[in-house]
């Protein structure tokens, strides 16, 4: 199933939740909608599901108009952040719900329904919980049941709204891997919403980065990380250092200090320089584009994170390898291995 969204606009009062969104999702894709809260990602998902309606724009599934149908006719599996399980029903009945409410003409007989529910519970590896009630399950189990319930109707599209948002970090990591392998197994066109960049980059085939109701960039996880299209994407994905610089006559300056960085045809004026924390090469004082004094060092994992006060007023955090210990008070030079400059203040 392919999904096509054209020029979608949705306003809540004067607030534009979606401000002209175009998106094409290919068959069998696992797509992540990534953005901060208020970026419109959940609204987009709910409109695709038929739980919300746009003010203008088009949504089509396989070329046919989806907005002409309600949520019920769209055959879309939806997984909610807070599971939305029916708490008066057992796990088994929750999963069976979509099969039991089918019109009589197409409803399967009890034995078929039971077999199908059992298969789904096996698929989410929770067949042993069939007789429990949702309140007796852990968060991770509930979300897997919610997923099994959504899959029961053999959805054409699977939509997940912050599916792991309410779970603790460890469970979230497990479920991410599990979701990816599950998608590999069932291969349904899927879209999931998240504000967690790590989750988006790790699980999805393609990532859509959104901000303020607009799409900032669409690309593979590698693309959005390695070559961010806009300043927003660079700042949002990965840990970046952001410095206000000034470009004039092909020279980049931080304050009054020329940085000696190449500017590829960038217009003059106030600009922003982005460097990944780990892309700052530490050298002796006097070398490199920047110079500064180490304020504070914390060691964790494979890197040491140092707070450096640059000569020029800004204080930045860098991640340096641990082979050369930094100490508070050291004067160092810094050279960005890779950087991007975006016009605008």
């Amino acid at each position: 199933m392919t999904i096509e969204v054209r020029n979608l606009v949705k306003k809540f009062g004067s607030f534009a939740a979606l401000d002209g969104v175009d998106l094409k999702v290919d068959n069998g894709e696992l797509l992540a909608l990534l953005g901060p809260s208020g970026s419109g990602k959940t609204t987009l998902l709910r409109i695709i599901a038929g739980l919300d309606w746009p003010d203008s724009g088009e949504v089509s599934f396989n070329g046919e108009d989806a907005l002409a149908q309600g949520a019920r006719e769209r055959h879309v599996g939806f997984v909610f952040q807070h599971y939305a399980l029916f708490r008066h029903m057992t796990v088994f009945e929750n999963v069976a719900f979509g099969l039991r409410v089918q019109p009589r003409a197409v409803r399967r007989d009890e034995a078929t329904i039971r077999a199908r529910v059992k298969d789904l519970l096996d698929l989410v590896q929770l067949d042993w919980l069939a007789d429990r009630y949702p309140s007796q399950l852990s968060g991770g189990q509930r979300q897997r049941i919610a997923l099994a319930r959504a899959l029961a109707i053999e959805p054409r599209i699977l939509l997940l709204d912050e599916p792991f948002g309410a779970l603790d970090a460890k469970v979230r990591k497990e479920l991410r891997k599990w979701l990816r392998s599950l998608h590999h197994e069932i291969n349904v066109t899927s879209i999931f919403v998240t504000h967690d960049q790590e989750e988006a980059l790790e699980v999805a085939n393609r990532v859509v980065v959104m901000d303020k109701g607009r799409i900032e960039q669409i690309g593979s996880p590698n693309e959005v990380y390695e070559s961010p299209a806009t300043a927003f994407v660079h700042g949002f994905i990965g840990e970046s250092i952001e410095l206000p610089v000034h470009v004039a006559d092909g020279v980049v300056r931080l304050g009054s200090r020329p940085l000696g960085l190449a500017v590829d045809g960038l217009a003059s004026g106030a600009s922003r320089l982005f460097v990944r924390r780990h892309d700052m090469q530490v050298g002796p004082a006097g070398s490199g584009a920047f110079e500064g004094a180490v304020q504070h060092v914390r060691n964790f994992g494979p890197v040491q994170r140092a707070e450096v006060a640059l000569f020029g007023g800004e204080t930045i955090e860098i991640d340096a390898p641990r082979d050369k210990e930094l100490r508070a008070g050291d004067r160092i030079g810094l050279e960005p291995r890779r950087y991007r400059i975006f016009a605008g203040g």
Partner: protein
Amino acid sequence: MSAIAARRRTLPGFGLTMGLTLSWLSIIILIPLAGLFLKSFEISPEQFWNILSSRRTLNALRVSFGLAFAAACVNLVMGSIIVWALVRYRFPGRRLFDAIVDVPFALPTAVAGVALTSLFAEKGWLGAPLAALGIKVAFTPVGIFVAMIFIGIPFVVRTVQPVLQDLDPEIEEAAGSLGASRWQTIIRVILPSLAPALLTGLALAFARAVGEYGSVIFIAGNLPNVSEIAPLLIVIRLSEFRYADATAIAVIMLVVSFVTIFAVNRLQRWAQNRIPAR
């Protein structure tokens, strides 16, 4: 619980509050009721049986319990619809209507009785058109039914309201996206979730209607065997100094009420156990 655990209770004041609870409930409820039972032992079983099986008593009990149950059922249905509108929709005057629901709680029942009677009397605003259709409300059992509906409605609304407010609209969206029609969503998802609260509301409205006296006696007409409620019969027997009769009717009302409330309680517990707390 072991002695150590008891001493380490984190919430203090158990002894004091428990003691107060028990003595208060005893003074206010248990002792008067026990007195009633003791009084009833002064009459012999045959006498007791004769009082209860008399035609007038049986009819009064039938009117009281039968109409109270019917009124509670009507309140259950209408109350649920009112709750739904008040909780789920935003409309001008919503707060006003929400406040109006409480009026039967606060209004002196006699005032309600007089108001309903003049409204439904043959010349009243509602009584006249109904009379034209051949329906007599005031001074008939139908009038009792109307009064019982009036005083019972807030009990259903106020018990179900908080539970419906707590019910996550997402579960309706989930049901819809799974292919359930609106009707299926109501029957299979919403009503079962509300069942314990609905049963409680029903029980409270019923209990209130059984015990209602003030508003009913104005509108009922109080014809023996036809529109005479049991509480009124008790008052009549008392004014005739037939204390044994009054006591016997009171005891049987107490027993029936207790059994009903107990049964509904069990039913409610059963429904609640199917929905373990979140």
